[in-house]
């Protein structure tokens, strides 16, 4: 051991001034990337240190799933993918579409006939709407048949039902936008079906049309509902839906219990 270390503090020699002190030479200036690399931190680590995302993501993405989880369990994700696809193609369609009664049909025709890949993007949006509704009902049927709506997942079923209604409202509001004869009169009939409800029905129809008659206001109203209000609600509710899935986990398929019973019988 260093003998000076044994001495009481006041007897030790004074430490050298910093300039005289031996030691590693001051390092040359490095750029931030090299510093980070030397410290063993990547860009992801940098982000993680500041957001604390990894425990959350680990819990969210690497959940334990029950035995027997199968392809039916992907229907919810498939529906969400259909929604994301609708959102992306919808945003790009909105770059060319004009919600004006005199120009709506022309602009929709312009998208289909003139815009590069316009027919494809409009076709994706048009068929994707049907795909989303089909997947949604398959997902709903899976949840029902597997009994996955039972305690403690009732609230998630309720959110799912609201999402179903909102998705159908997307279908109704989107159908008007091409503004040809078919979409115009189909929407007239659709609104009249709402008006046929007693007491509140007529008021609901007035709200949807923006007045007593089906006019130019109706088109811009449907466009705003289709573009902003309903997609925003759907996005928010999908967030709540996923949160509950991550929090409560998924259910095992109903036939697993039966297998277990038969095993037990064999053991006996």
């Amino acid at each position, binding site marked *: 051991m260093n003998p000076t270390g044994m001495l009481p503090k006041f007897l030790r020699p004074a430490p050298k001034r910093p300039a005289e002190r031996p030691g590693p030479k001051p390092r040359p200036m490095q750029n931030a990337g090299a510093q980070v690399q030397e410290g063993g931190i990547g860009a992801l680590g940098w982000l993680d240190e500041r957001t604390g995302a990894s425990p959350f993501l680990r819990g969210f993405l690497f959940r334990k799933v029950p035995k027997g989880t199968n392809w039916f369990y992907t229907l919810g994700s498939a529906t969400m993918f259909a929604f994301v696809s609708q959102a992306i193609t919808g945003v790009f369609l909105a770059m060319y579409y004009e919600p004006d*009664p*005199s120009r709506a049909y022309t602009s929709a025709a312009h998208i289909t006939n003139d815009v590069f890949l316009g027919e494809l993007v409009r076709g994706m949006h048009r068929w994707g709407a049907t795909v989303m509704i089909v997947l949604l009902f398959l997902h709903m049927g899976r949840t029902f048949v597997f009994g996955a709506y039972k305690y403690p997942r009732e609230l998630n079923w309720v959110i799912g039902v609201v999402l179903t209604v909102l998705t159908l409202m997307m279908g109704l509001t989107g159908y008007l936008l091409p503004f040809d004869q078919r979409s115009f009169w189909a929407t*007239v*009939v659709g609104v009249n079906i709402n008006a046929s409800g007693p007491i509140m029905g007529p008021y609901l129809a*007035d709200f949807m049309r923006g*007045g*007593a*008659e089906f006019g*130019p206001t109706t088109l811009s109203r449907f466009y705003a509902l289709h573009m902003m209000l309903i997609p925003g609600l759907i996005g928010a509710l999908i967030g709540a839906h996923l949160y509950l899935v991550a929090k409560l986990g998924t259910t095992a398929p109903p036939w697993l219990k039966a297998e277990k019973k038969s095993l037990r019988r064999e053991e006996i």
Partner: protein
Amino acid sequence: MADSIDKHKRKSRYTTDRNAPGAFEGETVTRRGLMTGGAMAAGGVATAAIALPALGFALGPMFERTAPSTWQDVGSVDDFNPETYVPVVMNLVPSIGEAGKTTVYIRKFDPSRDTERNSDLPYVAISTRCAHLGCPVRYIQASQRFVCPCHGGVYDFEGKVDGGPPVRPLDRFYTRLSEDGKRVEVGDRFSVNSELERFSPRDPSEHLDGLWQYLYPSRPST
């Protein structure tokens, strides 16, 4: 058992008796409680200041009459006769564009044939909106009936229900002659009940007879 806490006993008005945090002698509301309540009220007022106008903006059209009264020229008096209906294509709402064009069937009023006595309208203008759900009906001269393609609604020559799901006769329009008496003009739509009594324009599927009519009230917008 007298010492046990009675949950139903009324609490003291004074915060000091209730051991509320931050209590002060003689207070009934703590300063903390007042501040919290005040902040909530201010937040509520601020939210309402934004939400109520936005809501009113969206819901307003339900409560105001939006369709202006218009008279549209549909043709010469020679174009129409009392025997059959002549289809006229017109826009019911201004600036709705090509897609919104609709057909109106027009014939001359016939006092010997029309059951609606003492009508002040020189022409009968019948809307093609089916009174079931608003599909376009077609007049068929051979059977002298209006037929709806969607759910099989059938109306007679006057537009009264002959069969199918419609709940009331076909809607009509006010008609008049132009000032020189040579042109026919069509005005606002109105609805009729099974006795052809006039009502404000209603949506399809709204009943106008008996007690049914009270389920579908008249609105300021119609």
